[in-house]
């Protein structure tokens, strides 16, 4: 009895060690890419800002300061030290709104990616594993969704569901998931005929176990890269919908919605327009940099060359 326990103990220690070695190898390749590391730092900083928003924001994001409309940033003439990046047309502090806006963007990205990955992976697994007519139907439906420009489809979907942040996220998740279906399906099809899968089946593993425990973990690399890229597309698309008036509704401090509100002041108050855009760009750029690094680290084909 004690012997078996010890054996199990060493076995799990071995896998732990292996996992640590794999992580170390991953980090080695990831950190080779300087851009990816910078992207990671920036992303972590944005996450910290989002989490600590109530502590670090100098003002409430919805507080309208009377008598301080369209105050320029501090370094411009007429700037006010109370409002580092200036105020908008109704006297709200732009810096505070941007800080709170980080919460929305990260939340949008996380929800959309979770939704589209989980739906896309399940559908893709079913299509790739069972093939036949199920596969044909799924592939066709995904082709149909991909035949529309994603933003247009999301826009019309939001019009149907009603404008708002939640509906915008659902719409974006729906237009992003075909990519996960395709990737998973292709990966499953190439893995399914491998010996280890046949071995698991002979050993008596059921369909569900084969799909999720045996095959899926070996298809993860491209999915992780795609999930990262979808995170940034989700933020961009949600901001675009907000900008068109179909995403988060004012006075939500969502970056795209802030831009929509700022549009009429572009020639009078550049700061109202400039800063929310920079926030979107920096966030999306950081995530895309990470995505490039992940691809380099996870793609064995690139590693060898």
């Amino acid at each position, binding site marked *: 009895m004690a012997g078996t326990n010890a054996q199990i103990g060493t076995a799990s220690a071995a896998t732990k060690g292996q996992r640590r070695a794999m992580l170390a190898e991953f980090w080695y390749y990831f950190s080779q890419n300087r*851009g990816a590391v910078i992207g990671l730092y920036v992303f972590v900083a944005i996450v910290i800002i989002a989490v600590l928003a109530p502590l670090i924001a100098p003002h409430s994001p919805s507080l309208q300061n009377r008598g301080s409309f369209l105050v320029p940033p501090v370094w411009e003439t007429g700037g006010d030290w109370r409002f580092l990046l200036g105020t908008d047309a109704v006297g709200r502090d732009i810096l505070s709104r941007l800080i709170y806006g980080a919460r929305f963007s990260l939340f949008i990205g996380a929800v959309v990616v979770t939704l589209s990955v989980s739906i896309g992976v399940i559908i893709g697994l079913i299509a790739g594993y069972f093939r036949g007519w199920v596969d044909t139907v799924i592939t*066709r*439906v995904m*082709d*149909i969704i*991909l*035949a*529309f*420009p*994603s*933003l*247009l*489809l999301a*826009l*019309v979907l939001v*019009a*149907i569901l*009603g404008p708002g942040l939640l509906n915008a996220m659902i719409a974006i998740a729906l237009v992003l998931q075909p990519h996960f279906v395709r990737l998973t399906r292709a990966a499953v099809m190439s893995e399914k005929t491998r010996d280890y899968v046949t071995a698991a089946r002979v050993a008596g593993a059921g369909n569900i176990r084969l799909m999720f425990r045996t095959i899926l973990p070996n298809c993860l690399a491209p999915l992780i890269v795609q999930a990262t890229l979808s995170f*940034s597309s989700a933020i*961009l698309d949600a*901001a*675009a919908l907000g*900008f*068109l*008036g*179909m995403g988060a509704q004012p006075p939500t401090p969502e970056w*795209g919605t802030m*831009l929509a509100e700022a*549009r009429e002041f*572009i*020639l009078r108050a*550049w700061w109202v*327009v*400039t800063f*929310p*855009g920079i926030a*979107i*760009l920096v966030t*999306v*750029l950081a995530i*895309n*940099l990470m995505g*490039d690094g992940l691809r380099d680290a996870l793609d064995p084909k690139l590693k060898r*060359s």
Partner: protein
Amino acid sequence: MLRFLISRLALLIPTFIGVSIISFAFIRLLPGDPILLLAGERGLSPERYQQLRELYGFDQPLVVQYFDYLVNLLQGDFGTSIVTKRPVLEEFLTLFPATLELSFCAIIVATVIGVPAGVLAAIRRGSWLDQSVMGTALVGYSMPIFWWGLLLIILFSGILQWTPVSGRISLIYFFPTTTGFMLIDSLLSGQSGAFKSAASHLILPTVVLATIPLAVIARQTRSAMLEVLGEDYVRTARAKGLSPYRVVGLHALRNAMIPVITTIGLQVGVLMAGAILTETIFSWPGIGKWMVDSVFKRDYAVVQGGLLLIAAIIMLVNLIVDLLYGLINPRIRH
């Protein structure tokens, strides 16, 4: 080649039917009764309501309605706008040249800059040139283009006053539409300054719309070139003593262009999505702005017809790209 074409066309038919079902279903899923929406604020008498229901066929079962819709589609009838009462197809055809002109200019700019930039980055792999080109490309790829457009308006229309803020041409010029392309029409009109006005209206929207395709094309060209430059035939060409220009231009580039052409073709969907934002920012009277306006005006007939027409165009372009791909790469034809 013919068999290839037929098999591709056969694949498109189910997709097209699916697209038509989706655009048909949308109008039925939208909140509110389309007939009451049609009536607007004034309201309707119950008799008139019933009459309109029969006129539009809403009293029929859904399957019958769908087949009526499909038959109309095949006859070129995409419905009638609820707001303007004009046929959807007619409106589409009036506005489409504006979008086509803008997209065409954007894809040319993106290709003409993106391909050489990607080639240079690949040849000088790892150099500061490579890093700055790829860095810029990643910034372009991450760009929220609606903000980018506003920024360019602030700079070039606001501060420098070089370009106009919106529209396709200055209002002082008037000439009949011949081709629908403002650049060509303004030249044909012979009015002095008309072409310059059209070009200056076109330049900012083109830059904005070209940004993402440009970044994608540059990145794709670089990786395709890197792959090809490592091939044996390139090494052979080098070993033969061919000049670097010939090696890169003739042997490498021609083979690297195969995936790049596919990428350029696939940008059409990106351009259509981009047109929605670009046209809204610059008040460009094309189909992107038309769709956004129709969504807001709840002109469901236009949304339904427009979705279908736009999807059909994208499918058609993808088919052409597929065929081109088969032409330049005989390996996949069979």
